[in-house]
């Protein structure tokens, strides 16, 4: 019927070329990657993004730097593939100037590599270091930096700021403390948020004792959107009616995200922005100043703006309307 929430740019690209869901008319819904290319409806006509693109993320980072770190020396560590290419494009659009940029090839990250990265950032006297890579790169970097007592202002991309994965690598979550991070959905500890409360209650009943983290929230949110898409596709949903439902109604689906999605008959763009937070010693991200300030933008040359988006209320009992 459909692929739901496949993970990773390389994986989704490989499936696109070897299994060819586009040619077979198979929906590939809510891909867990911010690669901007998946919103290209000509090349991937059945694929729907859900996460904000890496370009959007970099543009919003650039805007935040402009507002808060003007005049500071900025360093950038990025994954040397389409992930990083998107980031570089976003920073370029944002006009961010770097004192030093350090690429790493996917798979090459580790403690030895991290020591070399730190040498370069130290040499450039970077005040702010952005880590635009995967969580294992963040782990290596912050773990080695803690040992070397290297402590610039860290700024983590949403992919690499996954505290759960970082902890699994053996690096304590405390290394994240005070780092700046970005998320499209509310803080997972924010029980005043009706979506977070509702999802965490369901999760606690389903998997008692298991941590309710950002991965869980994003996963449940995707399932929640999928259920709404299926209902909107009619009593006897088909692949075509499922995609038509997202095209026509996806922008109004209830979602925990604090930013809107870009679905329409001509767009498969997912979420379009982030709020900015700082990491607690526990590895939880919370909004700076206690209030969510969200930014939205696009993957092109559009401006970064502070969002006034009002998300739909949680449907009664969490069931699709």
């Amino acid at each position: 019927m459909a692929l739901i929430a496949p993970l990773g740019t390389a994986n989704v690209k490989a499936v696109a070329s070897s299994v060819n869901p586009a040619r077979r008319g198979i929906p590939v819904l809510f891909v867990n990657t911010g690669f901007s290319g998946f919103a290209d409806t000509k090349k991937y006509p059945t694929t729907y993004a859900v996460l904000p693109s890496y370009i959007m993320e970099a543009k919003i980072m650039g805007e935040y730097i402009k507002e808060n770190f003007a005049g500071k020396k900025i360093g950038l560590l990025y994954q040397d593939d389409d992930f990083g290419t998107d980031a570089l494009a976003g920073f370029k659009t944002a006009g961010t100037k770097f004192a030093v940029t350090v690429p790493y090839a996917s798979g090459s990250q580790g403690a030895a590599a991290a020591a070399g990265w730190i040498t370069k950032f130290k040499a450039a006297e970077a005040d702010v270091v952005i880590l635009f890579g995967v969580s294992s790169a963040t782990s290596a970097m912050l773990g080695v930096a803690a040992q070397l007592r290297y402590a610039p202002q860290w700024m983590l991309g949403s992919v690499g700021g996954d505290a759960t994965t970082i902890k699994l690598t053996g690096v304590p979550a405390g290394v994240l403390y005070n780092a700046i991070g970005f998320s499209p959905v509310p803080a997972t500890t924010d029980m005043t948020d009706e979506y977070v409360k509702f999802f965490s209650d369901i999760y606690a009943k389903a998997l008692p004792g298991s941590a309710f983290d950002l991965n869980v929230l994003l996963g449940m949110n995707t399932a929640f959107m999928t259920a709404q898409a299926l209902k909107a596709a009619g009593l006897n949903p088909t692949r075509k009616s499922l995609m038509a439902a997202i095209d026509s109604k996806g922008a109004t689906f209830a979602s925990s995200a604090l930013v809107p999605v870009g679905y329409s008959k001509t767009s498969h763009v997912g979420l379009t922005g982030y709020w900015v937070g700082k990491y607690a010693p526990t590895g939880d991200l919370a909004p700076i100043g206690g209030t969510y300030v969200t930014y939205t933008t696009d993957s092109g040359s559009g401006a970064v703006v502070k969002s006034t988006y009002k998300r739909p209320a949680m449907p009664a009992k969490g069931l699709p309307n």
Partner: protein
Amino acid sequence: MKTSTMKSRWLAILASAALVATVVVAAPANAAATGPTCDGKTPVQTCSGTTSDGALYTMQVPSDWNGTALIYSHGYGFIIDIPAGVPVVGGSKVDNSAYAGPDAATDAALVKAGYAIMGSGFARQGWNIDSAVKTNVELVGVFKKQFPKVSKVIAWGKSGGAFITQSLAEKYPTLVDGIALGCPVLGTVEAELDMALDFLWGLKTFFDPTIKGGNYSAGAAGAGEAITDLVKMFTVIGKLQASISTNAWPDTSKAPDSIKAIPPRSALLLVGLMAGIPTKSTSFDSTTGPEGALKLTWPLAIAPAMAVLENGAQGAALAILATHDLELQAGGAFYDNSKTDYAARVADEAVTFNAALSGNTALNGLLSYLSPLNPAAPRLTANQAALAKLRALSTHTGKISVPTVVLAGETDVVSPAGNTQWLIDRYAEQSAAEKAAARKADGGSFKAPKNKLIVIWKTGSSSYSKFTAAGSPIPLVASDPNSNAHCNFSAAQHVALVKLAVQGATKGSVSYDGATRTVARKVMTGVIGPQRFPALQKFYMGK
């Protein structure tokens, strides 16, 4: 390929450098039609003779013959003897023998099932489509004259023999009632050669510029050059195998230090990707890693290059030997990469295999080295007269007039899956046109035209790589448990393939019905066609 000549011996690398080839002119053993001479034996009568072009043929007819005659076409045979010391293909002799089937077990099973079988050795080896089709037409006539009670003729073949079979069906659609294509080469030989020669050019450019890589001389000198290239190519492949653990470039490489700072496996993988060499091979599934620290890193960063290395050993051997053959036929060099955009060719794979390519910076550096502007990486330009002559050799239209059954390997390096996809695409166009015509003609009482093509993809397992306790990969070529090697089908699979074609010929159509699905799953260890859309060969990009 004649399967027997292409059994890979995983990197049994040659130590000696100079081997002398004996040029064998692939002249027929006889110069006029003879026979058939039949032995009159029961329960199987064997007949032999030669067609008017001097090609040897053989026939086997059981006493309980069911009236169906199978004509088999063998695959590409080398036109020169290969010295025994050359890896992979060494010891192969020019073989003009007649083959009524791919192996003795299959032949026996088909005859036991009541079929008459026949096949030619062809008037020449090498790329011989036009000549082989002519021979087969004559052979069918000889058979019908000798055994007039023929009810059906089914043509079948493997690899290059499948190309002959499709050509036969396209040019003589009333001569055959159905066809079966195993691991087929289809469309145009240019697509095959483009893959093989891109790989060879990449190997040469990065790792050993002394490889000639085509434009071979005429006569014995050219054969010697081809054999020398084989030796050099396998030597480089051996050095690349060793480099996986050392990251040391082969000492024959002339690449600058800036390029040599990149792991050679990344350059090798790039060469494989731009040529279209599969990243899954007999020993390397590209998903399984050894237990321990490399469990994830191995499939991500190393296995794709290892698979290309293993596959490329066969691909490059084909490149050299078939190029030598076809340059002789065309009268000069036909390979032309002067305008090939290798960056565009790997644009998608650059993401999928980014870790194994060592990242975009490394990839861009490697691609820059291959740029047409780099004098150290000279591009090759075809002799236009030779290219025209090559293109005048038999090509397919893809038209299907009789029930056709295809069995293809998804990761076959010699006849990649793109060959079969090309035929599927052509038939989809034909079928759509036939349906449109039927709608127009029937004026509302539309009756769908009969389906005449089914494809079974031999997929095998997705996880089969093996490692020692120390984490070293275990070569699986000798056993090939997953049947990834070129045309590695069992007798039972051959028989099932033929029987599907016979059933189709009886009904006048083929379909993905329950029985076919069961055969595909249980006998072929594969899946039926609509579940796969493999990429076409790189040759077709932008065309």
